[in-house]
């Protein structure tokens, strides 16, 4: 008992000493301090986490807490004052199908996210036009032979309503066209990972996903109006299915939040870590 007590005391002292020394180092660094909370899109989370890690090295007194859920939770958390930054896959200061604009919020572009139409590896079709995609997702085209493939039912796999990927895909790839649910050969998935597994394991399936997820042999990206889905084609303007990722803030950002957004938008981060994470720098599109 006594030995244990002694041990506990020693351990506690050690922990306190270590913490204190760290705090001492931090105090010496710089004056920028504060706490930044980032909520919202899971698609942008890897980018936020990487940026937070680098930013905290530069400004040790700034604490950044980031978490990911659905896109819409980002601007909502900002509206409620829970978060300083709401990561969102669409510009939440404007109306999009299904979601009203968030009044008084400012959308800060942080990255370009490309999306791809994907099919199971057994599908022979390698190009689809806007009209063909609209037909498939609205349920008018139900067999692959109608779009130049073999005679097999098309299995439509989509994200559930409210997903940021779905909002963007509907707006860009389907030119605002509807996704209609069907009693057969139609399935909804809850995340990009599920989408990849579902399309990869279901023969004759079609779906859509962030371009970074298109890896491995079970799924393949199809061309959109004859243009291959690649970052190069997004940058040269020929591939149209992409969207900006946004950091929503209540009014113009200030203080540590402003510095953080500036860091994410800086050339160093955009050309370095952001590119490594397979996003496209916003400067490439301007």
């Amino acid at each position, binding site marked *: 008992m006594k030995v244990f007590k002694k041990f506990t005391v020693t351990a506690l002292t050690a922990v306190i000493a270590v913490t204190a020394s760290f705090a001492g180092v931090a105090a010496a660094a710089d004056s920028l301090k504060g706490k930044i909370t980032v909520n919202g899109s899971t698609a942008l989370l890897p980018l936020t986490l990487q940026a937070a890690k680098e930013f905290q090295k530069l400004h040790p007194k700034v604490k950044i807490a980031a978490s990911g*859920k*659905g*896109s*819409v*939770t980002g601007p*909502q958390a900002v509206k*409620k004052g829970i978060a300083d930054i709401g990561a969102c896959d669409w510009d939440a200061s404007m109306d999009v*199908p*299904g*979601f009203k604009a968030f009044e008084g919020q400012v959308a800060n572009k942080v990255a370009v996210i490309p999306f791809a139409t994907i099919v199971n590896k057994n599908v022979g079709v390698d190009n689809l036009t806007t009209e063909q995609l609209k037909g498939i997702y609205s349920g008018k085209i139900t067999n692959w032979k109608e779009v130049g493939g073999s005679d*097999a*039912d098309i*299995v439509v796999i989509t994200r*559930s*309503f*409210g*997903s940021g990927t779905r909002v963007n895909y509907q707006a860009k790839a389907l030119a605002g066209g509807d996704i209609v*649910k*069907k*009693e*057969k*050969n*139609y*399935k*909804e*998935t*809850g995340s990009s990972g*599920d989408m990849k*597994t*579902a399309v990869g*394991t*279901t*023969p*004759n399936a079609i779906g859509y996903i962030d371009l970074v997820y298109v890896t491995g042999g079970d799924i393949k990206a199809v061309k959109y109006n004859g243009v291959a889905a690649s970052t190069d084609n997004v940058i040269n303007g020929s591939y149209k299915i992409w969207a900006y990722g946004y950091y929503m803030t209540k009014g113009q950002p200030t203080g540590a939040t402003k510095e953080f957004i500036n860091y994410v938008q800086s050339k160093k981060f955009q050309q370095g870590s952001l590119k490594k994470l397979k996003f496209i720098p916003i400067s490439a599109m301007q």
Partner: protein
Amino acid sequence: MGAPVHNLATTIMDSTSKKEISAQRRHKRHRVSNVFFKYYFLFSILALCFVLGLVFIFIGKTALLLFGQISPADFFLSFNWTPEEDAFGAAAFIVNTLSLTALTLLIAVPISVGMAVLNAEIAPKWMTSFIRPILDLLVGIPSIVYGYLGLTVLLPFLRRVSGESLGDGLLAAALVLALMVLPTITRISDDAIVAVPRKYRDAAYALGSTRLQVITRVVLPAASRGVISAVILGMTRAVGETMAVVMVIGNTPQLAKSLFTPTSVLTSNIVMQISNVEYESTWNYALHMMAFLLLLISFVLILIIRILGRKRRDQA
């Protein structure tokens, strides 16, 4: 001469009084620790009740906001769930949840009761001591693992057998769930059957019954309450299971008209949509109401188990 004697006397007196004092102290210490632990245990149980109460209050509070925006009839009787057009009919989910549970039990109960009888009555000892730990292991497998197996093994198999091109639906979900509740129902029925007094069997054999007659006419009826609680316990798991179901049911908010219609139940619809809704919206309230319904369903089921258990005790 007087002084040493006096000294000795004091020493003896001192030591006895010291003993008394230390005994008193020990007594006091024990009393304090008893009181302390009494309150600690009381606090523990109260904390649990408090959390349970909070769950009810918070889910219920948000859920009831729903009926300020749409009528209960719209929610409970309409089959149209289209949040983007402000249609929040949950009837399809409720019916689907009930039919999925029924289908699951239809598959799982005969098999598990059969396994329980085998374990308790027929199998030799070495076999039971082998089967029981395996069933316990099966109970502990995380549901996501079952779901993943459903997605990668069961669905392709169902596609090949049925000729469907998707395979997701009630049948796939019921098969996965049946596998999940099977060990639970088996182990609890097994215990109930073992608990049937030996004299019942002896009496039945003495009257000239065959083993099958003993099992079906004496042992199973005597253990029926225990078997029913086992089934209800399996049912609560089937009603509330989420992850495994989400992966194989197709997640499309519509009534399941066939075994292979991609569809959605209360749990799977909540988990699919909750991260994509706005806090203060009819949609969010409707999802909370669905969660509240699940809470009520499992509460009622557990209540039934308790009542059955009490009756059995009274009879014994």
